[in-house]
């Protein structure tokens, strides 16, 4: 328990100490929120779908979470390059606990980031229909963050250095984000796109945010939570399996 805590604490301390990183990773969501939110606002309104900012904000929260958490998971690659990974790997702590501590730490960081984006989107004009919904939303944020941190860990176990990083961003995170229904409603999509969105775990996370924040869902909250939980468990097991096999 102590070991999981200290690994968690390390992730949090590293996050709080790198202010540029914190600010840097907020710029992208803000940019999306403002440019798309206001850019498409009137078209969306005319199509009879209501306020686009309201629709978009949960999607942008999901975006900040997926980026932050996959990157947190992938921090293992840095640790490998700077040698710190060895220190944790020779310690008499099961690899499973190491992986869990790091993952919970990374997920906490991503949740904080998601919460910050929530605050910013409120300033930008987002009106959740019930402000107290933020409490269950934070829990769902954490679940989504856990899922994608575990995914990041899994990927990092395969990679030796940061060279594959760009590849992961372009071939994994970007598609997961763009195909998730973060930016557009999942109703009335072409079949192919609707099918792909169904396979994307982020779709369910953002759907759950929308249900809770603006009372608008596609799959339904129960389905969302079941899918998210199952995928999170699967990724955690896979992540710890691959993490256990790391040799330095």
């Amino acid at each position, binding site marked *: 328990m*102590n070991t999981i805590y*200290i690994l968690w604490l*390390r992730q949090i301390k590293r996050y709080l*100490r*790198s202010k540029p990183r914190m600010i840097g990773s907020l710029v992208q969501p803000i940019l999306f929120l403002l440019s798309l939110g206001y850019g498409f606002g009137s078209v969306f309104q005319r199509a009879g779908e209501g306020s686009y900012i309201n629709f978009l904000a949960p999607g942008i929260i999901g975006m900040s979470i997926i980026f932050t958490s996959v990157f947190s998971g992938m921090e293992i690659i840095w640790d490998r390059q*700077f040698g710190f990974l060895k220190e944790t*790997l020779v310690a*008499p702590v099961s690899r499973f606990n190491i992986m869990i501590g790091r993952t919970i730490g990374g997920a906490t960081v991503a949740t904080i980031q998601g919460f910050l984006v929530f605050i910013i989107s409120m300033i930008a004009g987002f009106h959740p229909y019930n402000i107290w919904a933020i409490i269950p939303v934070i829990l769902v944020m954490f679940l989504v963050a856990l899922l994608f941190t575990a995914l990041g860990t899994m990927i990092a176990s395969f990679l030796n250095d940061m060279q594959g990083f760009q590849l992961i961003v372009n071939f994994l995170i970007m598609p997961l984000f763009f195909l998730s229904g973060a930016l557009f409603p999942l109703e009335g999509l072409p079949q192919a796109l609707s099918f792909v969105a169904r396979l994307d775990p982020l779709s369910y996370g953002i759907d759950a945010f929308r249900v809770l924040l603006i009372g608008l869902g596609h799959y339904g909250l129960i389905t969302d939570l079941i899918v998210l939980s199952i995928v999170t468990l699967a990724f955690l097991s896979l992540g710890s399996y691959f993490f256990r096999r790391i040799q330095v």
Partner: protein
Amino acid sequence: MIEVSNLVKKFGDFTAVDNISFKVSAGEIFAFLGPNGAGKSTTIKMLTTLLQPTSGQILVNGHDPVHQPNIVRHSFGIVFQDPSLDDELTAWENMEFHGVLYGVPKKLRHQRAEQLMKLVELWDRKKSLVKEFSGGMKRRLEIARGLLHHPKIIFLDEPTLGLDPQTRNYMWTYLKELNKAEGTTIFFTTHYMEEAERIAQRIAIIDHGKIIASGTAAELIAQTKTNSLEDAFLNLTGRSIREEAAAPVDRMRMMRRGFTKR
């Protein structure tokens, strides 16, 4: 304390460690010497559960690092050849992290951390981030950290590289005291032959993955009919420079990791 028999490690076609066998008794100070790329670090990685051997048996403190890694990990401390500190944490936090991972009780952990950090003269910098440290300071902190949990065996992979004679002397005095007081087994590698001669009770020399000689410094000197361990070492391993030998191993390692992840 350490028993190695017929240990082999291959990276693809390259044999980094070629059928070596040796024993280190409890409480012994043992030096493992060899030119660059001879297989020293690879051997240490196998002893410390970081690498899986291709074949052969290892026992560390009576347990097999391959099948009982966690039991083995409890019994040793290690100072790596290259840095393994968290740069974004302070010196004190690095010590804390280590102490918690090794399950050292809080009071004892703080007491020892203070004592060790004073020993390596970093106590007044305990709140500084490690990234602000010089190479030598990082080295000293790593040594202090490796000793924090009072392991039964301590592995030191070129621990004194980049340290000034004062710190080196200080460090070895402390290690020798620890060895006497707690019977800690010390397994170290170094390129400073006079250090090995002065400190090690027994020495093994490895070259091209094979152990080519072992014994006390005096025995090795007598065996080669030379005047010092340095000459004996050169006599045994030849005078050609081995920098090149290290590169292919690293490359093999990288290719192996890249393609045949296991």
